[in-house]
């Protein structure tokens, strides 16, 4: 027991004997939830996850004896949690439309029974190792939940439960360790969020994360287990990119962390995902999705926790052998929460008010991404994708620039593209990926050996066109040769027919890898044929006047992933017309000669 000494917004000073740094405490008559972040002589500073209004000096404080931890077990999927893993649906039942303070709610439902099927190894006398699978529970139609031995527990099974229906609080096994103490294992365990969960080894990822978004998959690919950032000014489309990934990525599990962003964006997912079908399993998307929400009007301090709470749950599904994607919108709000607390602690700010440890905290977070061989010898991965919201859209600010050093795929959103409603507004000049070689191997094997060449060709066409546009803006279009004007035309075609992809278009929202490649290849074939005709003497104006460009630009929404052969109808018409022109001009050439 201790007592409150001072209340300064979310930072409260307490006097408490024997409290440990990082420990959870409950404060005052309301029982506000807080975490010790600093010890100073006999006082401790705590950050409070809830508003401290009406708290006064002298109120009581109780230490809970453990650090901020999450409950890991069946029943996480389909849920929405707050920044300290309290289920928001339950909270609404308890306190109505507004979140009242001091509520203690278990993350996992204590009443619900799950049908537990023990693993064959689960026999008396078996030596259980840490992280091993005890059995399974069908968590949703699509996801089999593998009940794991806690990573810090080893020993011999002395008793276990048979197949049957159990709540998470019921004991499914008793284990005795070397020194003879007996542990009870349940279908869930707790894990401290600031400690990464252990695994055997890291493995090199070689599989791209397919998101169904052409500019991402084809141009700036990300691998499963990789780390990516989406920076961009407000309104550029960060949330849309992340929502699209959450919808369409070929992952087993998706965790959406709304960190300091809008309440309505959470609602959007909660209302739309149950209706949407996972393109891989054909089942409702909500069966593989769960959310953590600390919206911008919720207390700042819990924002910092929300990211760690999220990534720990992501690691837990990874440890079951799943490919997990966690999107975090926005890591800037998380960094600002760090700054806020650092400021209140009087820590020395180094850049724009941020504390010196900003970069290392960011790195530690992204380091939790990866593909691993788990303690139970399965392969699982956590892919981390963080949005970054730079003040004024300036990428040189601390959070963006540090993040850029850490991540391997950078999807830079551009205000000028967004202003022209070119979505996704991913800039082909500023974005980068260092996974392209490994992605190329996959595309070459599974889609087409031409993938890398075509991608390369498109990227250089785009950058050549940017250069030409600069010239036009200086001296006018007259300075360009015919083939240069054709490059401009073709880059416009690539931008509209391939790069732009409306999330709101029911046909084009998800584009299969095969369709991505076929579209790109078709546009480039059109370009190549044009170059050939121009070399034969066909005036470029004549090519530009052809009606095909507009038709090619509509193909993405006209032809669905399942009807790719329809792309060839237009291709045939173009081929016929081009053959005629070729014949005509080759003849002319002969006559002149």
């Amino acid at each position, binding site marked *: 027991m201790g007592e409150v000494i001072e209340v300064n917004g979310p930072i409260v000073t307490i006097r408490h004997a024997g409290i440990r740094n990082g420990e959870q405490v409950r404060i005052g008559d309301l029982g506000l939830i807080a975490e010790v972040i600093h010890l100073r002589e006999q006082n401790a500073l705590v950050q409070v996850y809830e508003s401290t209004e009406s708290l006064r000096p002298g109120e009581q404080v109780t230490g809970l004896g453990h650090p901020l931890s999450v409950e890991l077990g069946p029943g996480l999927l389909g849920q929405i949690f707050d920044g300290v893993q309290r289920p*928001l649906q339950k909270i609404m039942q308890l306190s109505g439309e*507004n979140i009242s303070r001091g509520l203690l709610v278990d993350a996992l439902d204590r009443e619900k029974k799950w049908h537990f099927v023990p693993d064959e190894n689960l026999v008396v006398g078996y030596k259980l190792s840490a992280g091993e699978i005890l059995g399974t529970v069908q968590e949703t139609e699509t996801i089999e939940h593998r009940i794991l031995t806690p990573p810090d527990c080893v020993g011999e099974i002395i008793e276990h439960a048979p197949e049957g229906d159990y709540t998470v609080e019921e004991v499914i096994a008793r284990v005795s360790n070397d020194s003879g103490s007996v542990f009870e294992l349940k279908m869930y365990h707790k894990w401290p969020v600031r400690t990464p969960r252990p695994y055997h080894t890291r493995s090199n990822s070689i599989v791209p994360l397919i998101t169904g978004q052409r500019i991402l998959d084809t141009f700036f690919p990300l691998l499963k287990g990789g780390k990516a950032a989406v920076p961009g*000014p407000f*309104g550029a489309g960060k949330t849309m990119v992340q929502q699209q990934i959450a919808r369409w990525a070929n992952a087993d599990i998706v965790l959406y962390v709304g960190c300091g962003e809008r309440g309505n964006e959470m609602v959007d997912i909660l209302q739309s995902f149950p209706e949407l079908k996972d393109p891989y399993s054909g089942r409702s998307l909500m069966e593989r999705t769960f959310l953590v929400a600390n919206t911008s*009007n919720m207390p700042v301090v819990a924002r910092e926790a929300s990211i760690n709470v999220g990534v720990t749950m992501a690691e837990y599904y990874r440890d079951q052998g799943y490919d997990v994607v966690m999107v975090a919108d926005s890591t800037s709000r998380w960094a600002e929460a760090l700054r806020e607390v650092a400021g209140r602690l009087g820590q020395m700010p180094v850049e724009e008010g941020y504390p010196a440890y900003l970069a290392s905290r960011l790195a530690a977070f992204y380091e939790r991404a990866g593909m691993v061989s788990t303690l139970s010898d399965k392969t699982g991965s956590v892919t981390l994708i963080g949005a970054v919201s730079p003040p004024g859209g300036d990428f040189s600010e601390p959070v963006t620039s540090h993040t850029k050093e850490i991540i391997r795929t950078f999807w830079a959103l551009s205000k000028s593209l967004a202003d022209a*409603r070119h979505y996704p507004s991913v800039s082909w000049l500023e974005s980068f990926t260092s996974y392209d070689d490994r992605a190329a191997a996959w595309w070459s094997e599974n889609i087409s050996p031409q993938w890398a060449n075509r991608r390369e060709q498109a990227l250089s066409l785009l950058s050549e066109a940017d250069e030409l546009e600069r010239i036009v803006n200086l001296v006018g279009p007259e300075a360009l040769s015919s083939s240069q004007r054709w490059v401009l035309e073709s880059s416009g075609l690539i931008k509209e027919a391939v790069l732009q992809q409306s999330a709101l278009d029911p046909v084009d929202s998800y584009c299969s890898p095969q369709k991505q490649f076929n579209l790109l290849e078709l546009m480039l074939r059109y370009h190549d044929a044009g170059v050939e005709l121009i070399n034969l003497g066909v005036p470029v104006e004549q090519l530009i006047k052809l009606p095909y460009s507009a038709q090619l630009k509509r193909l993405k929404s006209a032809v669905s992933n399942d009807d790719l052969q329809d792309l060839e109808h237009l291709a045939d018409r173009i081929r016929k017309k081009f053959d005629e022109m070729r014949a005509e001009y080759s003849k002319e050439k002969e006559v002149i000669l």
Partner: protein
Amino acid sequence: MSDLEYRKVSSIHGALMFLKGVKDIAYGDRVVIRDRQGQKRNGQVIRSSADVVLVQVFEGTNNLDLENTWVRFLDEPFELSLSPDMLGRNFNGIGDPRDGRPPIISNVRHNVNGLPVNPVARSYPREFIQTGISTIDGLNSLVRGQKLPIFSGSGLPHNRLVAQIVRQAKLPGDVSNFVIVFAAMGVSYSDARFFEEEFESSGVLQNVVMFMNLANDPPMERLILPRTALTAAEYLAYEQDHHVLVVITDMTNYAEALREIATEKGDVPSRKGYPGYLYSDLAEIYERAGRLHDRHGSITMIPVLSMPSDDITHPIPDLTGYITEGQIVLSRELHSKSVYPPVNVPPSLSRLMKDGIGKDDTREDHARVASQLYAAYSRAMDSRNLASIIGAEELSSGDRRYLEFADRFENDFVKQGSDDDRSVIETLDLAWELLSLLPPEVLSRVSEEDLQKYHSWDGS
């Protein structure tokens, strides 16, 4: 409520007052201060320790001294008395009447800070509001429960625009049923008068609650005014079933008051001297807009802010844009070309438009037409740019068409009268009239069916 009055002020600076030797005061407590003349001021506890209490004084500390200042802690947070009788009334930032009429007496009292809305309780806003303004309805539609700010600049006609929206906003085919909460901070007397007359002449005055803090009123009161106003709005929306339109002007004055107090407290500044928590603080205000599942009413919010030196990257518009669901940006250039409303289309955005428009709400082509207008106008800006380099005469016929499109777009579509109340269908028809200046092969954002149905290209 406590009757105890302390005379323990130990120091005063700016709007802050330190008290020594008062015990166990609750953080956030409401405070009443009595000066030597017996005049009352209002304050709030912003830090509390076992022996020192820090109070911010909304009316400022001018003329207070250490000896003759009496402080009473009310042992309660800031609350507002709420009743339907608020309609037609005018209050200050703390909720005291400004109109000489008696204060609101009611058993219903709510904490002005509210509690955060559980996202699960929200219902996604999707009912299209017709404002009669083409750049909003056609390109950046507003829906019930949205927060859509106007980014303006000094001397730009944001007041006229807001007044027009307030006058014309309704669901298509309906009559207006909005109740208006008008929150003014640091506005001039003449601007306040303009709105009062506006409300009076359009006959809505009885449906308006005003919370006013004028340019010469105490600036620190602005810290609490939007919270008071929103508490009233929540009551009207969720307990009285009204659809409420909240106009808050000017958020820049709010943010400046916040910066002032933060500096006095010694908070670590982030950009341009604004405290790092400006984002969260603004979000506490803006996120109070919305719709809830089980409530009939809604809160639609139109905050107005002036961008210091017209800079959209300034922290105030920047952080606002990161929180709100889009923004309507006004342009000085269009204003100087006498285009009213001078809506700068490219940077303007409505994020909730997508769910409020289309076949069942406005028209099936709406989303595609809006996207096409954006694309064409952006392309037309390139042509304008080129014309300024090489001269309009040198342009290709394609570029010349775009030039004409841009001029007509600004003069016919963007520009409209203060009384011009266009239906959304009129707006969309007008859009097609402009798109008909361009040949079908450049209009790839609309569908072939749209072209057949609405596009009239004469082939010239």
